[in-house]
C-alpha cells in the first residue's frame, strides 16, 4: 500500500483529524486574508471598468467566488456522502454535515449578488432563467439536507438519508454549470472555465482568481472549526475527549 493511502487511513480517525484540522486552521486563515486583500484592492481599485458594464462589473469579484464555492462545497459533500454510503466511514458523514451550512450561505450570497447585478444590467431583480433557477434549487438542496438531518432523531438513519439526498442532488451541479450552453439563457456564458483563452483581460482576471482562492481558503478555515466542534460533540463520551478537556481545564 502506498504511503499516501496509509497516511489517509491514519488521518481517518476523528481524534487524529481533530488535531490535523487544528494545525491547518491558522494557515488557511492567514492565506485567505492575504488573498482576499489582494483581490479586493485589485478588483475595486486597480482593474479598469468594463467597456460595456462600467463599474457594475465589479460585483463579479464577490458573485463569482460565491457561485463557484456553492457548487464546489456541494460536490465535496457528494464525495464524502458517497464515501460514507460505501465504506460507512463516520468521519465522511461528519465532514459533509459540517460544511453544508457554509455552502448554503455561499449559495444565498450568489443568488442575492446575482440579483443585485441583474437589476442594472438586465433591468430585473429576478428571472426564471435556467442558471438562476438551478442555483435556487441548489439552495433548496442545502436547506433540505440540513432540515432532514435535524428532523430525523435517529442519527444513523439521518446520516444515511441525508447522504442519499446529497448524492441524488448532485444531478443539479452539471445542470447549473452547463445551463448557459444547453438553453438560451439571459445569464452570460463561462468566463474563466473555458479551455481556451479566458474571456476577460488579465488585469481583471488576477483579482478574481485571488478572490476565489481567498474565499476557498476561508471556507477551509471555517470548515476546520466546524469539523472540530462536530467531532467533540459526537465523541464527547470517549476517553481522548476526556483527556483533552482535562488538559484545557489545567490551562485555565
Amino acid at each position, binding site marked *: 500500500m502506498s504511503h499516501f493511502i496509509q497516511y489517509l487511513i491514519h488521518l481517518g480517525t476523528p481524534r487524529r483529524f481533530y488535531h490535523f484540522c487544528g494545525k491547518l486552521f491558522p494557515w488557511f486563515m492567514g492565506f485567505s486574508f492575504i488573498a482576499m486583500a489582494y483581490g479586493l484592492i485589485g478588483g475595486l481599485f486597480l482593474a479598469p471598468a468594463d467597456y460595456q458594464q462600467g*463599474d457594475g462589473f465589479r460585483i463579479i469579484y464577490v458573485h463569482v467566488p460565491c457561485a463557484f464555492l456553492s457548487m464546489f462545497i456541494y460536490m465535496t459533500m457528494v464525495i464524502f456522502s458517497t464515501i460514507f454510503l460505501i465504506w460507512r466511514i463516520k468521519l465522511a458523514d461528519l465532514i459533509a454535515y459540517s460544511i453544508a451550512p457554509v455552502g448554503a450561505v455561499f449559495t444565498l450570497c450568489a443568488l442575492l449578488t446575482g440579483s443585485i447585478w441583474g437589476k*442594472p444590467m438586465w433591468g430585473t431583480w429576478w428571472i426564471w432563467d435556467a442558471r438562476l433557477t438551478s442555483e435556487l434549487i441548489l439552495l433548496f438542496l442545502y436547506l433540505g439536507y440540513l432540515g432532514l438531518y435535524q428532523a430525523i432523531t435517529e442519527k444513523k438513519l439521518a446520516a444515511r438519508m441525508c447522504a442519499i439526498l446529497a448524492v441524488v442532488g448532485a444531478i443539479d451541479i452539471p445542470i447549473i454549470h452547463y445551463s448557459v450552453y444547453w438553453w438560451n439563457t439571459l445569464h452570460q456564458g463561462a468566463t474563466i472555465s473555458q479551455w481556451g483563452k479566458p474571456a476577460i483581460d488579465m488585469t481583471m482576471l488576477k483579482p478574481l482568481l485571488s478572490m476565489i482562492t481567498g474565499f476557498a481558503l476561508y471556507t477551509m478555515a471555517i470548515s476546520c472549526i466546524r469539523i472540530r466542534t462536530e467531532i467533540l460533540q459526537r465523541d464527547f463520551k470517549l476517553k481522548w475527549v476526556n483527556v483533552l478537556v482535562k488538559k484545557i481545564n489545567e490551562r485555565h
Partner: protein
Amino acid sequence: MKGIKDNMMSIDGMGGYGSYIIASYSIVFLGLALIWIRSIQKAKRLQIELREEK
C-alpha cells in the same frame, strides 16, 4: 502609477453603480462574518459544556 490612477474606480460615483456594489459586498462579507460568528459561538458553547461536565 498613472496607469493605476486611470484604472481606479471613482469612489464618489462608481459610475452610477455605487449602491449596487456596496449592497453586494456588504451582503457577502456579512454572510462570511455571520458563518464565522456562528461557528465560533458553537465551538465555545460546546467547550464550556464539556468543561462543566467533566
